[in-house]
């Protein structure tokens, strides 16, 4: 995702003098070529996150299309007030490109995990959120960001993510059915989507076919498209590499309650807890049941126990 981000942005910036990259002393090796090609369109503002965001807002005021790159906790948490007041409140065209979604950096420790970022960002007016599942969605997200004239958070993992989507000319703002199915639907976003895809492949061998849906744009959420896609399923499994509260589970719950639509949601998330375990990402996902096996297990249990969940009612 990281390579796709910089490759896409570099290509676009060859014909676009307004693109400017700010990094907060992260991304060693990522920007070397860009710096060579566009030395006056890149800056490392050092280990000073509040200033990194305020400075970016100022650049945007003078007409630059600013991309700020950092590890998510240092992109959003330390400098949340700057993100809120300087970028979102003033509705400036700054794209916050964060890496290390979820527990990508495990076992780096809790300080380096980004497991409350959706909760923080969804509450900020004017701020859109895109969390791609793979390099193809990442490319579409960056292209969208270049055209979009407002605050945007793009949530990336790191590197080595598999290519899942085949449709390069996609509309990143709409949910997309990756795998058709019935009875149970799985919705996910971000790099953990690959676990759901793996689960679906495991289940296919057992004759179980849940639907699998990618939802890259989490805010604003395309309500009609979401309802159209999951209408008719008995249960919806929401898989996210995020703490239990404030993420996609909460977003969809809000939406369904508001519409008065009954739905059975099964959250597969990290717990409402600080994480002290020393594991790599794969081990951490396994431990908290949000890996492929955990997803498969959950689908099997929902399929066999028909008392779980009920059909979504027609609107």
């Amino acid at each position, binding site marked *: 995702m990281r390579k796709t981000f910089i490759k896409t942005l570099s290509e676009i910036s060859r014909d676009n003098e307004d693109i*400017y990259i700010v990094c907060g002393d992260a991304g060693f090796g990522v920007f070397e070529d860009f710096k060579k090609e566009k030395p*006056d369109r890149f800056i490392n*503002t*050092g280990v*000073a996150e*509040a*200033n990194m*965001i*305020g*400075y*970016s*807002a*100022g*650049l*945007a*005021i*003078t*007409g*630059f299309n600013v991309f700020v790159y950092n590890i998510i906790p240092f992109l959003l948490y330390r400098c949340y*007030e*700057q993100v809120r*007041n*300087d970028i979102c*409140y*003033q509705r400036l065209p700054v794209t916050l490109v964060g890496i290390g979604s979820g527990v990508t950096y495990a076992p780096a420790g809790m300080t380096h995990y980004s497991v409350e970022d959706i909760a923080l960002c969804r509450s900020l007016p004017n701020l859109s959120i895109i969390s791609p599942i793979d390099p193809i969605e990442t490319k579409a997200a960056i292209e969208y960001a270049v055209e979009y004239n407002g605050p945007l958070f793009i949530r990336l993992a790191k590197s080595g993510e598999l290519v899942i989507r085949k449709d390069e000319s996609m509309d990143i703002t709409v949910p997309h059915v990756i795998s058709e199915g019935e009875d149970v639907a799985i919705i996910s976003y971000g790099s953990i989507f690959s676990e759901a895809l793996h689960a679906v492949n495991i289940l296919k061998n057992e004759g179980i076919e849940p639907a699998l849906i990618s939802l890259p744009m989490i805010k604003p959420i395309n309500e009609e498209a979401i309802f159209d896609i999951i209408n008719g399923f008995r249960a919806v499994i929401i898989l996210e590499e995020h703490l239990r509260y404030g993420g996609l589970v909460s977003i969809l719950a809000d939406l369904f309650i508001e519409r008065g639509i009954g739905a059975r949601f099964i959250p597969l998330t990290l717990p409402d807890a600080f994480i002290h375990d020393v594991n790599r990402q794969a081990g951490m996902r396994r431990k908290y049941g949000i890996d492929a096996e955990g997803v498969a297990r959950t689908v099997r249990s929902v399929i066999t126990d028909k008392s779980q969940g009920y059909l979504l009612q027609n609107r």
Partner: protein
Amino acid sequence: MSLKTEQMVFAIHKAMSVREKILKMANRSKGAHVGSCLSVVDILTYLYFKELRIRPEDTLWEDRDYFLMSKGHGAMALYAVLAERGVIDEKLLKGYMQEDGTLPAHLDRFSVPGIEVSAGALGHGLSIAVGIAHGLKLRSKKNRVFVLMGDGECQEGSVWEAAMLAPKLKLSNLTVIVDLNDLQGYGRPSELVSFYPFAEKWKAFGWEAVEADGHNFDSLRSAFTRADRSSLPSVIIAKTVKGKGISFMEDELKWHYFIVTDEHLSAALMELKGA
């Protein structure tokens, strides 16, 4: 180099009129921060009538100088000077802090023209100003950027993050003015969390630091001239008096918070007119 007599009379007259507007706004709104606003009146008057290249009728003029009011709680002073300069209609001041009103107690750039950035939380303005100043330089533009901060505000870490970056970017087009009224929310900065030695700190960070009397137009003029000529980013440390111009408010901490009653207002206006 001092101002000619008629220019001085003009400036003093304008500053008095700005003070009158502030006092009336404070009285009508029953809001706080009148002391914080009065301390920056002369600085703002100087900026808006002598220093800033602006077009009152075209606040988005692309060659304008940018002025950022980082101490957002000084909003009344900015609104008053914008009205005095003809950037906004004076009638808008009547809606300050009123129900369904026009102007909030802290700055919102979508409220009226002439507010370059929203402000209220302290320590934001300088970083944004550094971004604007750098953006202008990258485009080889001649616009200048001015940012006014409070002294208590300089306890914010973000101020020093930005102070570290500006010299590296060679922002000769950036001038900070610190309103050194020596009173923050709870007392004197030097007695709370001291930032002294102050000018030395800025110099150590690579800035041109100039000290000035923030109520003396000649002193401000020479400070702004020095700042303009410097190849470094500049800071003007403007010694001011909180509540300046109204004897019973001067250098009194309580006027960070006190409401201007009708009695206060008439006493204050009498003093202003007599001055």
